[in-house]
């Protein structure tokens, strides 16, 4: 069992290396390369990387970027849906929507916490979001203009998100994987909630069905874009695969999403707004039409229908809340000081 290879791969060996490094204070290129090899081998063996473990700087940075983008998407994602809380058409729907948007706040919180273990504070991450430096999922820059949009978001956007997220439950960075397990468990009701809204509309009056079709027409293409640029254009894929930040390529995920969603649209009796969509007997998948990537990049670069509104809503919430956060801190410090005084 204790052959040389596994000894070399064990953390004990890393410890020895680090002790050596401390002595010299500077790592030689060879030593870093050694550490990296050990690190990559740990990931390949499905070991989890924990926050205090040695990790390559690029791993840390990539994870901060991806996890925070994910967290930002949850928080920005609250806004288009929150837009309908006060107008939900029944008390049952209102409660479900409130609970869903609340879950999104919770998921943002889990993800920010996971990110914070990498040595960056939530406030720094907020700064990156508020200054426009950090990105979030482009889909949330589209407006929710009818009640059916709430159904379409649950069905399509959460559907696409689940496809993206389930593999992340096994990602290499422990805190991220654990956050995703919790997120996926809680999110299982979100898509069902959305689909049920669509189903009710499609079984309703002509007006309701038209509302559902209109929502599908507007959300279909952005949902496909949400799974990311085509593999040819995707910069991070190879490295992300190695670190298990990704298990399948964007194009594979998109195909999976389309294959699973088309039959669901059939049950609803809705038409997917793509004249080129057609079952391909040979490949066993649906062929689909050209995605308008120009639109995608326009939205990503900040010029979508609601980018400005989303950002100013977040910035306002944060700025308007500053006095509240300060007050709570000041109060806590006073209480602490009083406790000390009493102790003396």
């Amino acid at each position, binding site marked *: 069992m204790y052959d040389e290879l596994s000894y070399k791969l064990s953390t004990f060996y890393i410890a020895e290396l680090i002790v050596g490094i401390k002595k010299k204070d500077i790592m030689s290129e060879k030593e870093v390369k050694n550490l990296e090899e050990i690190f990559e081998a740990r990931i390949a063996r499905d070991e989890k990387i924990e926050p205090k473990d040695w990790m390559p700087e690029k791993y840390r940075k990539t994870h901060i970027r991806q996890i925070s983008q994910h967290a930002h998407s949850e*928080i920005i994602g609250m806004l288009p849906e929150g837009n309908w809380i006060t*107008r*939900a*058409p029944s008390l049952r729907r209102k409660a479900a929507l409130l609970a869903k948007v609340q879950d999104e706040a919770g998921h943002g*919180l889990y993800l920010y916490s996971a990110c914070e273990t990498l040595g960056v504070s939530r406030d720094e991450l907020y700064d990156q979001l508020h200054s426009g430096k950090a990105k979030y999922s482009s889909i949330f820059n589209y407006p929710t203009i009818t009640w059916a949009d709430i159904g379409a978001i649950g069905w399509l956007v959460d559907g696409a998100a689940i496809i993206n997220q389930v593999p992340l439950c096994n990602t290499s960075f422990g805190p991220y994987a654990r956050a995703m397990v919790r997120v996926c468990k809680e999110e299982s009701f979100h898509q069902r909630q959305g689909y049920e809204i669509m189903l*009710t509309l499609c079984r309703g009056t002509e007006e309701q069905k038209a509302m559902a079709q209109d929502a599908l027409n507007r959300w279909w293409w952005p949902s496909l874009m949400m799974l990311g640029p085509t593999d040819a254009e995707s910069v991070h894929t190879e490295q992300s695969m190695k670190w298990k930040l990704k298990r399948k390529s964007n194009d594979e995920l998109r195909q999976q999403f389309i294959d699973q969603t088309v039959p669901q649209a059939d049950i609803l009796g809705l038409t997917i707004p793509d004249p080129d969509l057609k079952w391909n007997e040979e490949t066993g998948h649906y062929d689909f039409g050209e995605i308008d990537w120009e639109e995608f990049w326009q939205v990503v670069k900040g010029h979508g229908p609601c980018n400005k509104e989303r950002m100013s809503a977040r910035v306002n919430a944060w700025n308007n809340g500053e006095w*509240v*956060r300060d007050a709570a801190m000041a109060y806590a410090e006073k209480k602490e000081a009083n406790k000390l005084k009493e102790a003396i």
Partner: protein
Amino acid sequence: MNNLYKYLLTIADNSLILAQRLGELCGHGPSLETDIAITNISLDLLGQTRSYYQYAAKLVGENKTEDDIAFLRIERDYKNCLLVEQPNTHFGFVIGRQYLFDVYHYMLIEKLQNSPDENLAAIAKKGIKEVSYHKRFSGDWVKRLGDGTEESNKKMQEAIDDLWRYTNELFYLTEAEKEVVKEGIGVDVSSFKEEYYKEVSELLTEATLTVPENKYFTKGGKEGVHTEHMGYILAELQYMQRTYPNMNW
């Protein structure tokens, strides 16, 4: 319409309108943690609302549903107090409104648990745990904001001063309430008025806030005469049901 039905509305409408106000905040609060907490309160209140309305719908019969009651009344038929319809001017108002309501709400349903009406008692028994938590949450925040920074003290005081004039109405009894109290089913809210002001004043003092000494109070909500805010609340609340009548959602 019978008195018990009207009585249910005076209680349930408070929860509905306050839940609606809190629902506006989701995603816009000072921190993620407070967003989650405030949404929880909103969900609790909404749950209570539904229980009361379901009971009320049963009393009316005619296939009425909780949604008919929630969405399809004219403004004058909503019987919530004016306090709960006041806007989320800033977080001090959100907390102030919540606390001033929570203390009252707790005292009300604590007594309502003993109602000989089994439905009412059951709703109250379930609600008391939720409301007791709301009171703790909002009370803690009044203290934080009152005794936090100079700025927060000023803002919290502003909210309390502004909202204080709506507190007296909480203890006003409508004719329907009087009848239901006479039957021994309802709670005489005027009976705990003194206790209410004592508890609230103590906490405000602890929070280094000044207890307002109003001579003048505003009332009307419980009789269906609301502030100008109410029309806009209902415009949003009823939007779907009014635009697309008689549909399932």
